[in-house]
């Protein structure tokens, strides 16, 4: 087990390193002039070639890509000082560079954006899991009935609709046309728990409900399978109540694959729910990355991609370990 975890962590580290190199190379070789946007912004649209030259030099674009990547990686571990224009800004240990827009260390900004995304992801994921598994189990117990068939086709239809349209229309109709929900947005929990809750309620419901359709189908399938296992018949034959049979015997086995998928989905939510954050105006990681893209704030974009990849790599490892604990048949090697 321990050896397995170490092996997976090493492989994950390799993947993240490779992705960071790819992202770095993309930003290095990609834009014709990566400094142009920064130069234009800081000189009020009067970016002369000389100024551009100075910015490129300050950002290190005159050096070789390997030495700059080395500096960047070193900054990530030990922090570094960054010179922009005339000022020197110290960037603390996990240094991802300075935002072109605010000139603040990217990591500090990320910390202010994270709570919104985490709130959104946790709330939506709880709703998804609750609705999805409950409805899925109920449908599996009533397999073949009209209600079951209607449910399966409804969820199939629902998940065919692109998510962003579902979210957009629910936002427009439920907050603008009919005042069912208050204005959405993010208020820190510590500032005002009430506003935090009301502002996130609709995004939670929209994201949670939409995602629950696939969980309904999935847990229904898993449940149907585990209900037909021999040990369920044995449990019934022993005279256990149907409640105990379903909840303790069948559900436990059925939940194993659901947990796997849930782990990965949750990681993707944490990596940035771009559509949700744009539509419901929540200042989280996804929105941050999107805004940064539109103004070509390269260090921020780089940081969001890297952050998302790390979350997904880590989630994959955790899910595999949990899987082996939940399902004794799975051996890690």
């Amino acid at each position, binding site marked *: 087990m321990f050896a397995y975890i170490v092996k997976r962590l090493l492989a994950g580290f390799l993947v993240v390193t490779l992705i960071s190199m790819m992202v770095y190379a993309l930003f290095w070789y990609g834009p014709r002039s990566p400094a142009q946007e920064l130069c234009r912004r800081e000189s009020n649209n009067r970016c002369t070639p000389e100024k551009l030259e100075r910015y490129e030099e300050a950002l290190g674009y005159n050096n070789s890509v390997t030495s700059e990547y080395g500096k960047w990686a070193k900054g990530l571990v030990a922090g570094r000082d960054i010179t922009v224009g005339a000022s020197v800004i110290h960037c603390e240990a996990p240094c991802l560079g300075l935002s072109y827009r605010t000139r603040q260390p990217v990591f500090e900004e990320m910390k202010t954006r994270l709570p919104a995304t985490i709130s959104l992801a946790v709330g939506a994921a709880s709703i998804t899991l609750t609705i999805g598994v409950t409805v899925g189990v109920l449908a599996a117990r009533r397999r073949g009935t009209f209600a079951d068939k209607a449910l399966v086709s409804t969820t199939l239809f629902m998940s065919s609709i692109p998510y962003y349209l579902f979210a957009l229309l629910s936002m*427009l109709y439920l907050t603008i046309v009919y005042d069912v929900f208050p204005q959405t947005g993010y208020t820190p929990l510590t500032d005002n728990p009430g506003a935090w809750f009301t502002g996130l309620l609709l995004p939670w419901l929209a994201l949670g409900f939409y995602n629950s359709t696939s969980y309904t189908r999935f847990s229904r399938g898993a449940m149907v399978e585990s209900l037909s296992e021999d040990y369920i018949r044995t449990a019934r034959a022993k005279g256990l109540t149907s409640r105990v049979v379903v909840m303790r015997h069948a559900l436990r086995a059925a939940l194993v694959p659901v947990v796997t998928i849930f782990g990965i989905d949750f990681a993707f939510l944490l990596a940035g729910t771009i559509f949700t954050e744009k539509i419901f105006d929540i200042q989280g990681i996804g929105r941050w990355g999107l805004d940064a893209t*539109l103004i070509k704030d390269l260090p921020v*974009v780089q940081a969001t991609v890297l952050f998302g990849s790390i979350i997904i790599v880590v989630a994959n490892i955790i899910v595999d370990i949990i899987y082996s604990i939940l399902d004794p048949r799975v051996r890690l090697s």
Partner: protein
Amino acid sequence: MTLPATEIGSHGPAEPELAPVENREVTGRSPLRIAFERLRRDPVAVVSFLIVLVFVLIAVFAGTIAKFFGVTTDTVSASSVLEFPSMLPKTGPPNHGFDSNHPFGIAPQSGEDNLATWLFGARTSLLIAAIATFAATFIGVVLGLIAGYAGGVWDRVISFVTDLFLTIPFLLAALAMAPIIADRFGTDPDRYAEVQFYGVIFILTAFGWMTMARLIRGEVLSIREREFVQAARVIGVPTRKILFREILPNLVAPIVVAVSLGLPAYVAAEAGLSYLGIGVTGRPSWGQTIDAATKWFNIYPLYLWQPVIGIVLLVVALNLLGDAIRDALDPKTRR
């Protein structure tokens, strides 16, 4: 049990024990043919297919249809069709009745004709989705075949790259790449739209091939151990021929299913990218219209509903069709 030689091959005396059945003609039907007949009898599949067909025709003949209704995507001077200062159209919805010159109305702010935008939006959507699906399928099948058949180092490298790409969050990566592609290759302002168009296809392809590669690799791993492939190898059939004549025909069903379920995902992704502002901008796109229409929704909901209905209808029809194709090709579902 050992069989006498005569029973293995088809040569030898004809089997006299078999009583001649009625004079009914027995025709061999290939699995694809069976699947096709199942599809034809599935009402959901037929309706979805017809809807998709209509959209394809719209996409192909967008120009002709637009001309028939007398509408164009040409930029008009906004002042001639819009009221000031509300920026709402002078004729048609939301403030006036139906205008036969502009059946879908006029866009606020820009003054463009909605029907023309919608028609050419369908073209953009389907064209990008189709090219991206084709490219991603091609890459996925080739890499999957190599990984599954060659094995060893090839398999390990390709599987690693596949997992690597699956780790990168698609939307974030698209966010990172879209402006860079446009900036790098869109030097000529006249060709900027074209560059964006191919940029979107490139992004969709770059992050869309992995599932196909995994699927094909898995299938090839099991097929290559089957007797007919081993037999072909033993009698010295060249590898290229084994891949294309022995293995690939057995992969048609999974490829068709993956393509038909992948296409709607690409349609949705294309519109989603333009909605976020990182897709195509130089040509009409449904996603772009949705982004523009959101601001006007309160006074002009119809403006938003046009692209929404387009996307939902097309994506749902494609999805249901894909689902029906999967069921039809799956020998386990007997109806």
